[in-house]
């Protein structure tokens, strides 16, 4: 408040200075009352017209424009928000579908794998059975062959040795004595020859 009074006193003193100055230089046109009435009249007229036209015609239009722009922007923002929500929802749906189908694909793959494994195992079992059978057959053959092999060899050895003796010394040798010798030899060296 004191500040206000201080400034006002400055303005008053300025006014007095102006008046003093005007008195010295022979009058300020502002203080000549000749056209005061005219100025008041024209000021009232022009300012009145300005006020009426602005307040009745122009300012409501401007405020209308501003309001409508504001509401339009708000509407647009709302619409954009809605669309964003919609798109988010759709994105979620899409992701759900994708994850579902992924799961399905995995299931199908697993099924197929299990089935294939089962098939392979079944076939393998069959094949294994066949192979085992053949192996056992072959082993049997081998064992029969092996069992009969020393006798055959013995007979061959007896025959060849009797023929050899006949050719070498030209005399018949008793087959039973030769077979006794061969038997004795084969018994002694059978291990060496057959690896049993």
């Amino acid at each position, binding site marked *: 408040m004191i500040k206000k009074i201080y400034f006002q006193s400055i303005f008053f003193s300025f006014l007095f200075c102006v008046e003093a100055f005007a008195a010295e230089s022979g009058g300020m046109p502002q203080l000549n009352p000749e056209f005061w009435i005219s100025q008041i009249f024209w*000021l009232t007229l022009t300012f009145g017209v300005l006020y009426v036209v602005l307040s009745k015609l*122009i*300012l409501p239009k401007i405020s209308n424009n501003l309001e409508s722009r504001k509401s339009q922007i708000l509407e647009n923002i709302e619409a954009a928000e809605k669309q964003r929500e919609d798109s988010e929802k759709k994105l979620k749906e899409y992701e759900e579908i994708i994850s579902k189908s992924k799961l399905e694909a995995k299931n199908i793959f697993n099924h197929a794998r299990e089935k294939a494994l089962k098939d392979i195992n079944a076939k393998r079992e069959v094949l294994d059975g066949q192979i085992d059978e053949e192996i056992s057959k072959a082993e049997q053959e081998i064992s029969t062959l092996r069992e009969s092999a020393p006798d055959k060899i013995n007979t061959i050895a007896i025959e060849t040795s009797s023929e050899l003796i006949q050719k070498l010394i030209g005399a018949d040798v008793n087959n039973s004595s030769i077979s006794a010798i061969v038997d004795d030899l084969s018994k002694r060296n059978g291990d060496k020859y057959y690896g049993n």
Partner: protein
Amino acid sequence: MAANPMTQFDVYRIGPEIKLGALDISFTNASLFMIISTVAILIIFNLGSKKNSLLPNKIQLLAELSYTFVSKMISDTAGSKAKPYFAFIFSLFMFVLFCNMFGMIPYTFTVTSHIIVTFVLASFIFIGVTVIGFIKHGFGYLKLFVPSGVPAVLLPLIVVIEIISYLSRPVSLSVRLFANMMAGHTMMKVFGGFVISLGIVGGWLPLSFSVALTGLEILVAFLQAYVFAILTCIYLNDALNLHH
């Protein structure tokens, strides 16, 4: 132009003398510039409010920016209760601004450099604000002169000071605008005279001063219009929201 820097403020009659009873209401150069300012404001704001495009063009932007500027100024200083007086303060601000700005064009007349014009404007405001205050608060409006929290001993003095300061409002308001305008224009005229009298050799210094002063005066023209409007808002605030 005459050498006397005060002749730019001369008011002279244009056309015949018009009398309304005993009163002389002749059309003068002051009336001419009042009309020019009014018409300029109306044309600009009419163009600025004609079309309602979502993306405003330049003149629409100008009108809308001034609208929001004044509206923000009022709501900041006087609150939402001052909304009905928006049109008055807007016209006041625009009128003073345009009169000041038209005064900056060489060879024009500055309407607001006349104490009678600013005093009439200030009296409008003073009377209006006082009437509004009494309508809103009845005789309670007189509490404006009794600030709260003042010791009882000082109260008589304070009340007298408050009354004087209240009554001096129209004077301070009008003299502020008038003195600023007159002083600035006189100074520019004086420097202009120096340019002529010092000639081609020494005239450059006052010329540069004159250029700088033109910028300053344009600032002052805007600032004084703003101050005029904002003080009106403050007075209105006193009348509407009675708390000191």
